[in-house]
């Protein structure tokens, strides 16, 4: 799987995409693949204040519970309600299924995140373990 180069990645397997004024956050193909069939996505409420590197929600597959870590600090402006009823969309299209939209507090934070190429190398090492 080639990771889209239009966004940044975390070592906790989230992606963050800045598209004009719209900033979306989701989980990577590697994350959905590791989790297996996703059955539950719990996102924060609109207005919640997120801190980079801290948990902001939960994703559950049949077999596992996994925390979601925010790639950046900011305020939640929108939640993808579709994933509450159709969480399996994250398996089918992980890089198209955003979970939340954010108003960034400090856009400079994104500079510290991984590029698509670096993330791909990172998961190749993880998978090799």
């Amino acid at each position, binding site marked *: 799987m080639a990771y889209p180069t239009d966004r940044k990645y975390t070592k906790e397997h989230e992606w963050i995409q800045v598209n004009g004024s719209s900033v979306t956050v989701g989980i990577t193909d590697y994350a959905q*693949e590791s989790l*297996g069939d996703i059955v*539950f996505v719990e996102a924060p409420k609109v207005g919640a204040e997120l801190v980079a590197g801290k948990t902001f929600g*939960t994703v559950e597959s*049949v*077999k596992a519970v996994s925390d979601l870590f925010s790639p950046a600090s900011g305020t939640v402006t929108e939640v993808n309600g579709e994933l509450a009823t159709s969480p399996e969309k994250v*398996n089918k299209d992980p890089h198209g299924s955003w979970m939340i939209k954010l108003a960034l507090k400090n856009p400079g934070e994104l500079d510290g995140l991984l590029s698509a190429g670096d993330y791909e190398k990172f998961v190749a090492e993880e998978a090799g373990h």
Partner: protein
Amino acid sequence: MGAKMVEFNGWDMPVEYPASIGCGIINEHMAVRTGVGIFDVSHMGDIRLAGPQALAAVQHVSMNDASRLAIGQAQYSAMLYPEGTFVDDVIVHRLATDEYLLVINAGTREKDFSWVRDNTRQFDCAVENLSDDFTQIAIQGPRAVNLLQKLTDAVLSAVKSYWVTHGTLCGVHGILMGRTGYTAEDGFEIYIPTDEATSARVWNEILAAGKEFGVVPCGLGARNTLRLEGKLPLYGHEISDTINVWEAGLDRFCKMEKPEFVGRAALEKAKAAGVKRSLVGLEMTERGIAREVYKVLDAGGREIGYVTSGSPAPFLKKNIALAYVPVEFAAVGTTLKVEIRGQGVAAVVVPTPFYKRPKKSA
């Protein structure tokens, strides 16, 4: 096959097979409920007891009544500590007049074998650990019988549930095939000689022969969700060395009319004293998935028990769990809560098993 592996009691085991070959826990689970799936369960252990007093030895270390077994018949049973709690649950097969096979769990193989050996010394019977001699493959689902019949000369339709037969399978003679399983579905468990070439060949021949039935390989993940829907206990969860037979609700497999077996005296006392807690089935009525060790709360939010196993149920499409609660909260219809990430999420006590396969003749 690119399966996701996990270490399970010292074994590298597949959790699930990849979505790219039509697998994943949900697909594997559904295949077993509606078609057929196969499991590599070689981690299971096997103990053979043979000799003039083999029956007496089995009767002493297990709670069910093995004297009722005809040759070729099997029963669900358990081995107990003197306290009436579980060493392990076990399938007891009667292979011949004075020969029995106990099929036990992976995590408890060595403990179980030592337990059986140490507690049967007074009997004239040999106790052998055959765990490394067999690869066990489970073929499970309504089409399991059709699949396996393509590969053997044994007449499988004549084998009733919890009976075994022998036959030639994939050209290998004398293979033991039992109509047993851990999925709450019809199916067989077969015992292949351990050598890698033979067991790999048999596995691949089963997959090839099962194509027309849509067979899929299944991992530990689906094995767990399938057994949970059927309320089949898992050691370390619903049964353990701190839980007794009455609490676990396994009364019908425990034959108190037998004059003696390890654990009997304690169970008699426990029954007289009154059972304090009970294993119940829960269905989540609010959004949330109960998981192992989560707290169970009463309607007022007071902690009263804990979840032993919990998961989404792929076939039933509900979030279900098994939990220990005080008996006064065990009635079907009782409203409870499960604490999920600090929040009490509503659940209700429901009848078990959650899933029962449709009745049909074999």
